[in-house]
């Protein structure tokens, strides 16, 4: 017999061992998230999925469900904190959506729409991050990296290649490429890799396909990310 807990008053069944995020998405409840992907072990880095459990905040992607838990998720208080986190992500990178190929298919953007983010609010860092266009099939635009580490996990666990890694600490954390030159062309990365498909934002881009689908007709132009099945990890963009 499965056990239950509640999210915003709704009764959610779960199997022992499941996380709050897993049980919620199984029940068709959307909890905003960026670094969680159902195929990988949660790394709990973005904190967008924070919920309040029995009065205390916790990341729902790493928190195991327990019988009788009282979870608050879609409340003004928690959404305001999530909105602030997305604002910080926007100012820490260079997110110029109008010139981004991923616009309309981007989870960061769609999450910000969901949370009603009207402006990034904080002062912009405008960091200096180079683009790597060395690979024949793939462009890397580090300006948009939100350090979710999904490409690191996909490359290591599925592709068995270890092409990507996160390096540095705190605000100095950045994505690096595992080659002496630091360039993607000098790795065995390929378009067929799982890591080529997991990026929730517009860093890992397939060349010569940009804007094939016009802006305005893309995934999240049509339906918000909160609609079940509309999270980009289940959608192929190529």
């Amino acid at each position, binding site marked *: 017999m499965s056990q239950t807990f509640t999210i915003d008053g709704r009764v959610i069944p779960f199997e022992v061992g499941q996380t709050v995020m897993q049980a919620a998405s199984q029940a068709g409840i959307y909890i905003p998230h960026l670094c969680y992907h159902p195929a990988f072990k949660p790394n709990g880095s973005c904190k967008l999925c924070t919920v309040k459990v029995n009065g205390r905040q916790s990341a729902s992607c790493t928190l195991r469900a327990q019988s009788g838990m009282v979870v608050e998720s879609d409340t003004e208080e928690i959404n305001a904190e999530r909105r602030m986190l997305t604002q910080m992500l926007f100012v820490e990178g260079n997110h110029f959506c109008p010139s981004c190929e991923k616009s*309309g298919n981007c989870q960061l*953007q769609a999450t910000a729409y969901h949370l*009603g983010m009207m402006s990034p609010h904080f002062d*912009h860092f405008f960091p200096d991050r180079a683009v790597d266009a060395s690979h024949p099939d793939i462009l890397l635009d580090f300006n948009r990296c939100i350090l979710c580490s999904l490409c690191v996990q996909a490359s290591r666990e599925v592709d068995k290649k270890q092409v990507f890694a996160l390096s540095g600490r705190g605000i100095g954390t950045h994505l690096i490429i595992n080659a002496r030159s630091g360039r993607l062309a000098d790795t065995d990365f390929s378009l067929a890799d799982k890591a080529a498909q997991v990026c929730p934002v517009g860093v890992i881009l397939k060349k010569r396909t940009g804007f094939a689908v016009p802006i305005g007709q893309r995934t999240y132009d049509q339906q918000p990310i909160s609609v079940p099945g509309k999270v980009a990890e289940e959608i192929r963009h190529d």
Partner: protein
Amino acid sequence: MIEPRKKIKVATTSLAGCFGCHMSLLDIDQRLFTLLEHIEFDRSPLTDIKTCSPDCDIGIVEGGLCNTENIHVLREFRRNCKILIALGACAINGGLPAQRNHLPLAVLLEEVYHTSPGLANGMIPNDPELPLPLDRVHPIHEVVHVDYAIPGCPPSGDAIWKVLTDLLAGREPELGHGLLHYD
């Protein structure tokens, strides 16, 4: 006799923007006539009035800050408008012009006036009348307090209409799915 209701005074300007957001304002189309029953334009490229009246109700700013003149105009708007709205991506995060931010200004000026084809021996303009360029392009909220933002590059006429009519009706402006977009 019934006093005609006082119209809301709206000022608009384009700083480091391309006027696309003002074009979207015109995309409100025939609803502009409805709007004009409630508002009048003060300083604006639409009226060609050069400075804000001190009693503007709403200031709408397109474009970010790329030179000292932009900052001057922005401060004038903030001083004279009760509500300030950042209109479009450039006002909100610097937009396309801010993509020059990781290049040193000297390199940009050299490229534009010295090394571009056909411009060898060109002079970097230095007339004292010209506003000084800033070393980086900034969104407007980094210099003055901004009350509302309408994102988009440009925002649609519908989004601008929604925010203005919300404000006129005394509602907190809100853009739902489809009207809220950053591209």
